[in-house]
Every structure is written in C-alpha cells, then in structure tokens.
C-alpha cells in the first residue's frame, strides 16, 4: 500500500497545562485508502493521543466534527484532505469559547436554537390518525429540516460573533422557519413575535457565509429572507 506524509498545523490548548493556545506542527503517514480529514485526525490521535476533537458518525449526519479547516468551517468527515493545501491548518470553530484543542463550548449556540421553540406547536387535539399534509406542503420543509446542528454556519457569521447572546444566528433562524413553514404548526404569529426585535432576526445582513459553509448544502439566508417577508406582510 502506498503511503504519503501529510502536514498539519493544529490549534492546541489544554487549560490544564497550557497558559495560552499555540499552533502545533505535526505530520502523519496516510494510506491510499484514507480519504477524509477525519481519517487523518484519527491517525494523528493514534500518534499523539492528546489531540482532542469531537466525532461520531463519520458520514456527515451527526454534526460532531465541525471545525475550521484552512480558514473555512466544515466537517472533517466530509472533507477530502487531498483537496487541501498543506500544511492543513485546523482550528476550533470561531466565535465560541474553546474547551480544549478543537472542541468548543456550544452552550450559546444551543441556547439560541432552543429560543425559537424548536418543536411543532399545535393546540388542537390530534386526530386518531396522522395529521394530513399535502406533498407540496411537505416539500416546503425540504432544505430546512435536514440541519444537523453542527454550527458551521452560525460560527462563520460575523453578526453571530458580535452578538451571540442576542442574534439567533443562521442555524436557529433556519429552524425557526422550518416550524413557520410547517402546515401542522399553528403558532406563526407567536413565532414572528418572538423574532420581532432589532437583534434576534434583523442582525442578519445577508453576508451569506452561512450558505457558503453549510456541509448539507442548506440555505439559511433564504429562510431568513422568507421570515423577513412574512414580517413585512404582517405589518401591512
């Protein structure tokens, strides 16, 4: 089997022993069967078991291994390391407190997600069978429900960096529209009220970083635009 040496520059910080973060230069031998950045990180961890990152499904559906890869947020498990310029520079997601190495504290991110009431609200008693929904109405949810909460989008958004406590951020707003767009949900007005605020929704300045980095190809900016349209419609 042919092997190649791949060079990395990795953000390291262990609050237990490091006074401040530093960049570590390290390389690893990879096989021709290795493909993804996560394969490389897994081998790096065999070499140095102190390198710390989250990972689980390794197929891009669990959202664990989001990180900043050569300056751009992405999932390690979906990124081909051969497409990357070396040394491959890995940093934690920007804008959130670093716990250790590539692991960030996502509390603020989830707090914003929870703030939009991410569940169907429908106070009418449910029927015996399923609530009916036409295929066309269901299609409205495509591009919204697939979010994996990896935080690539929100942590690439300057508005979220400046106001993580006030601006819901692209992931949370995508989720907000997912429920607004669901014909089974009866709380549209309440949801719009919840976002009618100079910060929560309107800090989105359509910079579109979120669209650029989403590993699932979703478009939070479009969803945010639709919420803004509904706000306008409601006002007139």
């Amino acid at each position, binding site marked *: 089997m042919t092997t190649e040496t791949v060079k990395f520059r990795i953000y390291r910080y*262990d*609050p*237990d*022993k490091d006074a401040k973060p530093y960049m570590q230069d390290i390389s690893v031998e990879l096989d021709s*069967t290795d*493909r993804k950045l996560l394969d490389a990180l897994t081998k790096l*961890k*065999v070499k*140095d*078991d*102190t390198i*710390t*990152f*989250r*990972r*689980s*499904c*390794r*197929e*891009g*559906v*669990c*959202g*664990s291994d989001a990180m900043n890869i050569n300056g751009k947020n992405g999932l390690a498990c*979906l990124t081909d390391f051969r497409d990357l310029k070396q040394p491959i520079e890995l940093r934690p997601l920007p804008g959130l407190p670093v*716990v*250790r*190495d590539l*692991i960030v504290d*996502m509390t603020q991110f*989830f707090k914003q997600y*929870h703030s939009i*009431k*991410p*569940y*169907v609200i429908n106070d009418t008693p*449910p029927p*015996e*069978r*399923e*609530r*009916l*929904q*036409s*295929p066309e*109405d*269901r299609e409205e*949810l495509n591009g919204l*429900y*697939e979010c*994996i*909460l990896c935080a690539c989008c929100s942590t690439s958004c300057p508005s979220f960096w400046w106001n993580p406590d006030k601006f819901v951020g692209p992931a949370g707003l995508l989720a907000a529209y997912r*429920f607004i767009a*669901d014909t*089974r*949900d009866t709380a549209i007005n309440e949801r719009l009220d919840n976002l009618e605020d100079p910060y929560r929704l309107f800090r989105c300045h359509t910079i579109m970083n979120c669209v650029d980095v989403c590993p699932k190809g979703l478009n939070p900016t479009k969803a945010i635009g639709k919420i803004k349209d509904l706000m306008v419609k409601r006002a007139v």
Partner: protein
Amino acid sequence: MRAALQLSEAGLKTAVLSKVFPTRSHTVAAQGGVSASLGNSEEDHWTWHMYDTVKGSDWLGDQDAIEFMCREAPKVVTELEHYGMPFDRNADGTIYQRPFGGHMSNFGEKPVRRACAAADRTGHAMLHALYQRNVRANTHFFVEWMALDLIRDADGNVQGVIAMEMETSEIVVFQAKATLFATGGAGRIYASSTNAFINTGDGLGMAARAGIPLEDMEFWQFHPTGVAGAGVLITEGVRGEGGILRNSAGERFMERYAPNAKDLASRDVVSRAMVTEINEGRGCGPNKDHVLLDITHLDPEVIMSKLPGIREISIKFAGVDPIKAPIPVVPTCHYQMGGIPTNYHGEVVVDGKPVNGFYAAGECACASVHGANRLGTNSLLDLLVFGKSSANSMIDFIKAQPLELPELATADVERSVARVERLNKQTNGVAVNDARTAMQRTMQAHCGVFRFKDMLAEGVEKILEVEKMVQQTEISDKSSVFNMARIEALELENLIEVAKATMISANARTESRGAHVRDDAPDTPETPNGRDDANWLKHTLWSRDGNRLQYKPVNLQPLTVDTIALKTRSY
C-alpha cells in the same frame, strides 16, 4: 429519548445522560424508514407484520414481544407524526410508505409498502423530532457525560449509575428510583462497521460487569450494502425504490437465491448471497471484492426526491454519482440483535424475574423481537415501542416506591472508581489503539458473515488474549479536560465484554440460524438450512463471571393470536 419524553410528560424528574449531544446519537444515521402497518398505499395488517418479523427472526424472536411491537406500531408512528416528524407524504396527505426487505403482505406472499419514510433521512428526522419534543417537555439533559457503571445494592436492586462529566472528568453518582439503558449497539467490535465511533456497547459493558447476563450475542446483522472500503451505510430503501444488486457479469444474482423477494429478501439472506458471489469469483472491481448496487435505471427525479442522502454519500464516499453509475457495496457489520435481556414491558429480566429499578430499550436490549435476524425498519420501531412501554413500566414502579431514596450501596461505586484509577496510573501498558485493533481484527476474521468451527474455537482463545491487553491499556493524555483518550480506553473496556460474549456464544451454538451461519451445521431434512430446532430453539445467556453460558426457552406464545408455527425459511 422516547422513554425520556414519556417520563417527562408524566411529570417525573428525568435526567438523560448522553456522551454526545442528543441529536448526535447514532439513531440519526438510520435512513430507510420505520415500519407500521398503516396501509396507506395498499392493504396491510399488523398480523402480517408480525408474521414477517417472526420469520425474519428465524423463529428465535419471542412472539409475545413481537405481537406487542407490531400491534403498537401504527399508534407510535402516528404519535411521532403528531410530534412533528416530517414524514414524506402521499397525494392524499397520509404518510408515505415504501417496500423494505422481508416485509410482505398476506403472510409472506409479496413485498408490501410498510416502511414510513422521511426521504432517506428517517432516523435524523426522528431523532430531531424526539429531541425537540423533549425540549418542549423540559427534560433535563446531561450532555457529554459518560456513564461508567451500574449501581446495585446487596439484593441486586438497581440504584442508578456512576458517571463522568467529560469536560471536567468529575465523577458523580446519579441515584435514581428507576434507571433505563438506551445505550445502543456495539458495532465497533468489528473492523468494518456501519456504526458510529460512539457505538461501543457501554450499556452492555456496564450490565455485564454488574452481573447481568447478555442474551443472544452471537447474532450480528451484516447489512448487505455498506459502501465498499468506507463502511458507510446505503439504505435498503434503495432496493425498496427499485435498486438491483449485480455481480461482475452484470447478473441480478438475487433471483437465484430468493426467487420471490429477490433483492428485497431478508438482510442475512442477501448478505450471504453477496459473499457467496464474491467467494466464487463473481465480485467486481480490480480485487473482485464487492458487488454493485444499481439504480441507474431509476428516474433521476425519484433519486433526487426519495434518495438524496444516498446520492450525497455515494458521491462523497464512493466517488460515484448513482444516477450515472452503480455503487460498490459489501456486507458490513450493522446491528446487534442480542443485548440486555428484557421483556416487552422493558423490564430487565434475570432468572425469570425483573431486576428492580432496571430497564432497557432499543439496540442495547433484547426483548427479543429481532431473534436471529432483524428486519429493516424494525429497529426504529423497536425504540419507539419499547422506549414508551419501558417508561410506562418505570412510572408504575416509581409510584409504588417510598418517597425517600434508599441508602446508596457503595461497593459498585468503589469498583468503578478503581477502574478509572487503574487506567490513570498504568505504566508499561498497551496502547488503546493496539488493543482495539487486535479485537476488531479478531472479530472480523473469526466471527463474520460465514462462520467456521475451527475459526470460532481459535477466536475464543484470541479474544481472551485481547482481553488481557485491554486490562493493561495505557494513555499518555492525563488531562482532566475533555480527555477523549481516557474515554476511548473506557469504551474499549465495554467493547471487549461484547466481543467476548459474541465469540463465546457463537462458538457454542452449533447450528445455523438467521445471521449465525456455520460450516459444520449441514442442511438436512431434519435441520433445514442448518437450523436445529430440536436442540437450539433457545436463547443464549452469557455471563461475564467465568464466561458461563446458560439457555432459556423461546416464547412461542403470542399475547392474543395463534402461535406462528415453525417453518423452513425461504424468500
């Protein structure tokens, strides 16, 4: 998550411990669907679903639990829809259903549309819907906490768990009136697996160390269609939508192995057919080591709307756009049919009696509804039905308990702390990766799709050697902050319990049944397909203490309908 919801909505104080954020658990990766005889597209009946499940299990499933699951299915799937699950829809607005392997109408006649689907992201949609509903119910989540051991008192009653907060390495006791394990499977005992890194059988390891036997651990499902080389799952829903398996000659070989169900035969049957094709030289690729899953004949519109995730996986992990070229696939370890012995109320049962305060549901449990082979879509159903039923049992149990918690038994806590201490202090030890690789290679080589008498016997010796390595693992990371090296070492201590249980149970079962097929179990009129009902129609129970094996009878008596009588299995 389903159990937590039931408990929270009943007003109980519920703590969910998870070593990952809840939407990152491996349910998220389920693709094809969840079965329920809703009959939205064609006539269906829960008794047909029950028949298929019993047949799929090769009659090792308990018929009371199977009846309960299939009867409850329409109810729990409807509830899930009410929770907001974004199911695909039929033109009349009802839930979309697709055909799936082994699911037939009218007691095995022809494939039926029973798998309720949200595109090919059913598990993702379900896990998120359940998490979201739990947010609404104010369930308390302890995120990134790893449970270390079960706590039992002198009488064996379960008092809770001892757990470690990953961010700080702080060890804390969670004392509870009732404890439920929904810890998933342990597919990572094998070198090639569709399972996530986190699927390390933590609940099984904890149960085994606490003296609870593990049931039917020799039965592992090899999913027919893992992406060759990468192991990533390609759902059976692809074949449900019309996908065809082809060998190097381009032949639809399943017509020879399962003339009726063809590519939609049960998973064990399809996986064996694929390995047989490869072994007989009809594999594809330069190494003739895989077969092809062909959907190039499907309308690209169907692929884009019903199988978008599969297309993405295929492009990313196989480098193939399935609209244009077939996907290279190979059978890959996928699901553990065995687990912690439970009844259909979700109570953990040892020596015929429930263990007070202890419950299990989902892949870590063995009710047993899957027997020797699980049908596709029955796993998501399993966790809905038994998540709910176990929570209801917990509610009844908790109500009957005194308000005050009993005094905490400390022996298990001390043992657990000692285990972590040993790891922290180990010197001149074995690298975690070396021990884990040795285990995974041993399991893959000695206990795979086809099993051989001599290889199994040798496998038992080898896995006991690996266990010695696991007892001496050493980590160089000594940090107290998010020490993943330590977590991986602790996970390996759980995996090795599962690996031992699997190898030893498989070595002992000298018949072929469902997913367990061995060379020395001949196909005779008395033992068709190598299945020996006279001697082996029974559940295995492996105990960690002395690797002891015991057996218990299969329950052939359903709750309200007639027994589905033993029959030779063919598709």
